[in-house]
């Protein structure tokens, strides 16, 4: 292939390194107003009264709203959310009122003048406690909420979804096992920390047109949610998403847009902007849900895993409109990339008075694999087998059935595993020159499928200009991951034109065509398919005209380097630009009209699994599988863990751009390392103790290990040029690989992240005292 598989320069590179790329934060509009939000100091409380009179009188204030102004609930999968608290506040920091004013400072002062009287309610600050029958109810009206038919809230409890997977006969299978063990794990809340915090602007015009500029991964999903919430027809609601400064899932769905729209509606004609601070970002956007995880594993003497029983309890936070889907994804992937005949999983989404859980790179997979992949090592050790051998025996092969009962049509598991074993030098001890430091190596695998509606759609349009250059339009969003470049390469390959001749445009619901969301590692796959179909459509139309022009059958013609060329008589060719406005005849007449190609994609035969058992023939689009290896050095005196080296190998189907693939792999490993060693949103009685970079640490350049990136390519049958999604899966095995390496170094297991120096030192002391 000519353009697919090449490391062409990112199409947004120059704009970004020169600071020309515009983000919503850069937008300043005439007569703009600035919003600030009054927030709850309590994790759970009844709102007795809100007095906004002083705020309204402050000069420069243009509008003040409270939850009473908009009581309609909304949500992506479960309509449980209000943009501003209504009657009760359900987490510390929840919006109770908002102000639009001439300056952000006036708006802040006005917020300080709003007087709210609360009556504190007992809070649920642990998901396990939240499931108990006597727990305070956070959503007493849950039974009346509108919910998508694939989710199952339990009325009159805090459980907003109970996902079930039932494959084989687990009870019988455990009795057939030679060894059975149960282990528990806990994964705390973390935050995405995108470089650019959430920001949005809304403008409501006199004719009822609403325009929203938002830093969002999903302009169409946002448009849909806002349309329902504010009862605005879609032809009057325009969502524009320019460049996005990192999302990692936090900018999927709606978060802050719903706060500024009611303000904008009260200040007709004037744009209203809300810019989150870093503290807001930690507390009031989305966080990754916490997870309590219990895994019971049964194995046979030969190392085959025969049965697994999982209980996942997710700490969903105050609203789980999006979180329920993570709980589902964690549930249906719960056996990991292994061939296990008997699987029983209960995955619960539980309301707590914690910040709102939402999508985070990996969509549940990073959390469950921290447990699954340590569990394999533990169980292997307990039966006296090398963990790598246990993975070889149980890893999914082509023809095996997943825990959902579908048959694997491709699987690179074993090749990835062997690559990583070789590269990291698994089994070879390396030693530090410092006698107080010890080293270890660990391996972990991971898998992920897109967790999206089975009929999620993508569309693309390709237009040829008069000079033979192109505009490619989709709404797959560039959020730093490189999708603009990958989609351009797919178009260039299909049309056989230089990628420099194609300009991509995204993110404007009035002008760029439908895309469900930029999530689920689906953009290269879904939007990529739509782009390929659009280009093929354009090609088909042009070939119709070209056969007249060239006096040859269209099957003998092809696109080559910007020309339509006769395959046999290659000197017979016409530049594509001659077809840009259709085909012109000598007598001055023409046919065809301007060249435009349209592509729409929905994966066919992607069918919901059975509600009771979770079993299905083809319930997900594809599985992406890969393996990480890690080498660590532990300081026995301070407990400090230094990751020396990480290796990643994934089956990418087809790598569209090796350089951006490499960047995604490296970023994923470092992000995984951050969660493994440093990151935790520390919650105490519903309060976040570290909502800033002083006390929430992510890796710096100094912490970067040596990173080695590999890939294999077993084509995805339905992917564009064989590609499948990789952005999220790449992060999945990192944290457990590090945990396994730490075990290898010091012989201590950590069933909780992050594995901080303090935790390590404590464990080392306990071990020495034993």
């Amino acid at each position: 292939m000519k353009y697919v598989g090449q490391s062409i320069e990112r199409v947004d590179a120059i704009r970004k390194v020169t600071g020309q790329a515009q983000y919503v934060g850069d937008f300043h509009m005439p007569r703009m107003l600035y919003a600030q939000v009054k927030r709850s100091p309590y994790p759970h409380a009844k709102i007795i009264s809100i007095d906004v009179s002083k705020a309204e009188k402050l000069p420069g204030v243009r509008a003040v709203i409270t939850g009473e102004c908009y009581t309609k609930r909304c949500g992506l999968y479960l309509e449980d959310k209000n943009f501003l608290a209504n009657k009760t506040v359900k987490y510390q920091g929840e919006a109770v009122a908002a102000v639009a004013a001439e300056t952000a400072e006036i708006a802040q002062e006005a917020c300080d003048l709003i007087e709210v009287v609360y009556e504190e309610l007992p809070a649920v600050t642990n998901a396990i406690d939240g499931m108990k029958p006597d727990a305070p109810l956070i959503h007493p009206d849950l039974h009346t909420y509108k919910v998508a038919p694939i989710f199952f809230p339990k009325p009159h409890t805090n459980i907003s979804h109970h996902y079930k997977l039932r494959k084989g006969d687990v009870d019988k299978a455990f009795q057939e096992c030679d060894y059975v063990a149960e282990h528990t794990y806990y994964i705390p809340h973390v935050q995405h920390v995108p470089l650019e915090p959430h920001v949005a602007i809304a403008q409501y015009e006199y004719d009822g047109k609403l325009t929203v500029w938002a830093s969002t991964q999903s302009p169409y999903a946002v448009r849909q949610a806002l349309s329902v919430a504010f009862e605005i027809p879609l032809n009057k609601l325009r969502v524009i998403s320019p460049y996005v400064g990192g999302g990692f899932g936090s900018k999927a769905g709606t978060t802050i847009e719903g706060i500024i729209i009611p303000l904008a509606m009260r200040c007709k004609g004037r744009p209203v902007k809300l810019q989150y601070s870093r503290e807001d970002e930690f507390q009031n956007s989305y966080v990754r849900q916490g997870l309590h995880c219990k895994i019971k594993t049964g194995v046979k003497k030969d190392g085959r895993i025969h049965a697994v029983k999982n209980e996942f309890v997710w700490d969903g936070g105050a609203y789980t409109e999006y979180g329920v889907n993570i709980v589902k994804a964690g549930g249906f992937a719960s056996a990991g990339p292994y061939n296990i005949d008997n699987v029983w999983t209960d995955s619960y989404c539980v309301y707590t008075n914690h910040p709102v859980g939402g999508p985070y790179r990996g969509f549940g997979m990073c959390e469950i694999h921290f447990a699954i992949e340590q569990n394999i090592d533990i169980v292997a050790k307990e039966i006296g087998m090398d963990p790598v051998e246990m993975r070889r025996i149980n890893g999914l092969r082509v023809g095996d059935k997943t825990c959902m009962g579908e048959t694997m049509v491709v699987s690179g598991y074993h090749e990835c595993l062997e690559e990583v074993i070789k590269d990291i030098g698994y089994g070879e001890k390396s030693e530090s020159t410092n006698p107080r430091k010890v080293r270890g190596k660990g391996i972990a695998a991971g898998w992920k499928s897109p967790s999206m509606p089975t009929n999620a759609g993508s569309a693309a349009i390709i237009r040829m200009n008069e000079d033979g250059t192109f505009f490619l339009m989709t709404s797959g969003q560039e959020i730093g991951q490189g999708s603009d470049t990958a989609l351009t390469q797919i178009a260039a390959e299909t049309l056989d034109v230089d990628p420099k001749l194609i300009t991509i445009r995204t993110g404007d619901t009035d002008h760029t065509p439908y895309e469900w969301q930029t999530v689920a590692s689906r953009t290269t796959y879904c939007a990529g398919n739509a782009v390929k179909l659009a280009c093929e459509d354009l090609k088909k139309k042009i070939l119709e005209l070209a056969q007249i022009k060239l006096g040859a059958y269209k099957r003998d013609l092809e696109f080559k380097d910007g020309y339509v060329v006769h395959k046999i008589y290659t000197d017979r060719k016409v530049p594509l630009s001659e077809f840009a406005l259709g085909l012109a005849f000598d007598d001055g007449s023409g046919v065809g009209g301007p060249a435009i190609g349209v592509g729409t994609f929905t994966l066919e035969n992607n069918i919901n699994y059975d509600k009771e058992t979770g079993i299905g023939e083809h319930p997900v689009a594809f599985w992406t599988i890969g393996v990480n290896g890690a080498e660590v050095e532990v300081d026995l005196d301070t407990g400090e863990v230094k990751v020396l080296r990480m290796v990643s190998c994934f089956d990418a189907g087809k790598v569209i751009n090796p350089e951006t693939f490499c960047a995604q792999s490296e970023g994923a490993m470092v992000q995984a390392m951050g969660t493994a060693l440093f990151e935790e949103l520390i919650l105490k009685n519903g309060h976040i103790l570290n909502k800033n970079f002083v006390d929430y640490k992510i890796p710096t350049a100094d912490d970067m290990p040596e990173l080695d990136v590999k890939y294999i390519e077993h084509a995805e049958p339905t992917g564009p040029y064989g590609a499948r999604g990789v952005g999220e899966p790449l992060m999945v095995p990192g944290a457990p690989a590090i945990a396994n390496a730490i075990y290898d170094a010091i012989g201590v297991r950590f069933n909780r992240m992050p594995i901080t120096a303090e935790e390590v030192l404590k464990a080392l002391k306990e071990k020495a005292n034993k």
Partner: protein
Amino acid sequence: MVLNGGTDVVIQLRDRLINPEYVVDIKRIPGLDELRFSKEEGLHIGACVNMNRLGGDENVRTYYPFLANAALSVGSKQVRNRATCAGNLINASPLADTSTPLLCLEAVLEVEGPDGKREIPINEFFVFVRKTTLQKDEIVTGIRVPYYEGAEGIFTKVSRRNKVDLSTVCSTVMKYAGQYRAAFGSVAPTPRRLPKTEACLNEGPLDDARIDRAVELALSEVSPIDDVRASKQYRLDVVAMALRRGLESLG
């Protein structure tokens, strides 16, 4: 309110912890950015000398390497281009990284106010968290550090992350003319010397038993707390480790 590098002031303003009527920038006052050394007079650190300059200075690296290391452990390169050593002391955080070497070196703060000049020895400077004996209308013009022929010292910083992080515990162990000094930060409301520990170390030859006893005393002289950054127990473990490692490498 005096504004020096501003790396504490600006953050306190933003977090609305302080609400001063005026903020006065002193960085352009002539002479305050002076950094000079002689064996006779020791080191003079002007109030506006930033951490990169201090830590990168040839004389400081040669004669006070542990002070240089402490200065270069503060924040990031960008922060160190603004953060000053004087600001670090005057802000009086228990974890101020340059405080422990300067406590061991018995530095003196040179102060000027409406009543003229005075000097405050560093061991009389810190009162409590963010409280010092500096008066409201006084400013620090510089820090004087005596020269110790042949002195050696070890600065240790333990933090959650290697770079751009605040100390969970910081410390300096110094040896001069056969005598030991030790100071710790982030283990009490102010950074502090450990007099009983030092006395024990200076009573006789340094053997394993003495080190063990010194560590025990050190743990009794500090009073760390549990907070978001670390538990009390971890801090105690680190105090023991830092003193032990310091003494072992000084011999």
